[in-house]
């Protein structure tokens, strides 16, 4: 799980064409996948949350902190991940994470429109722009997520041990 967790994010970061996330409804788990997109379009009822980590007793070390910290700022990311509850599309918009809010059910259609717009750029320009934009986040992923997953794994092992001790 540790190796996979690092590789999933590195492989997403290595997609060198523009990536658009179209979010409807709840992004309860692994919302960092969406935050590795260049732009996020969300239906107005969309929400972000982090169910698996602090709320469940383990460290949010798999890259969710790195991605939210990069896009929203460390203070917002820490407060969100220490007290996970549904974060509305509008809040995410105000934080600069979501760039467009559309009526519910229209996120994918809007993403396709943006895709058509981006396709007007020359191929190498399109690829290299994505490579340039993702580079700072990719560097943070490489630096932070291996250690973050080790911390998460250690917290999990401790939690499991204490649960087993309680029987």
């Amino acid at each position, binding site marked *: 799980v540790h190796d996979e967790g690092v590789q999933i994010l590195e492989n997403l970061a290595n997609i060198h*064409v523009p990536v658009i996330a179209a979010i409807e409804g709840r992004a309860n788990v692994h919302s960092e996948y969406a935050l590795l997109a260049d732009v996020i379009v969300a239906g107005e009822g969309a929400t972000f949350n982090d*169910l698996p980590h602090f709320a469940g007793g383990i460290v949010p070390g798999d890259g969710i902190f790195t991605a939210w910290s990069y896009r929203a700022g460390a203070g917002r990311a820490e407060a969100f991940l220490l007290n996970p509850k549904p974060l509305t599309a509008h809040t995410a918009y105000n934080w600069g994470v979501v760039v467009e809010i559309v009526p519910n059910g229209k996120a994918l259609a809007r993403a396709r429109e943006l895709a*058509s717009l981006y396709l007007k750029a020359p191929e190498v320009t399109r690829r290299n722009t994505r490579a340039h934009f993702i580079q700072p986040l990719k560097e943070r992923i490489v630096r932070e997520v291996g250690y973050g997953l080790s911390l998460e794994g250690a917290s*999990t092992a401790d939690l499991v041990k204490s649960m087993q001790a309680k029987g």
Partner: protein
Amino acid sequence: LKINQPNYFSAYRSLKVTRDAQGVLVVEFHTDDGPLTFTAQDHTEFVDAFYRISQDRANKIVILTGTGGEFILGIDFASFGDVILNSGHLEPGARRGSADS
């Protein structure tokens, strides 16, 4: 269109992958065509999926989205059970049966 689609498009249980004539690749997360409940198998498969997507030069734009009005709804903690026993690592917490509250 389907005749020329790469094998990886249909290789992953929880990803529906389609591409239009302009090279816009749409990756939809799903569980049985409904909202995705993330499992340990998905964790393994997504490594390969995103690698292949990144290497396929026919993909000109990538769109990530969910299914059934949700992006990623929940997580199947039980599917990660072997991981706890084998390595002490666990991505999700072990205490919740369902994560869609």
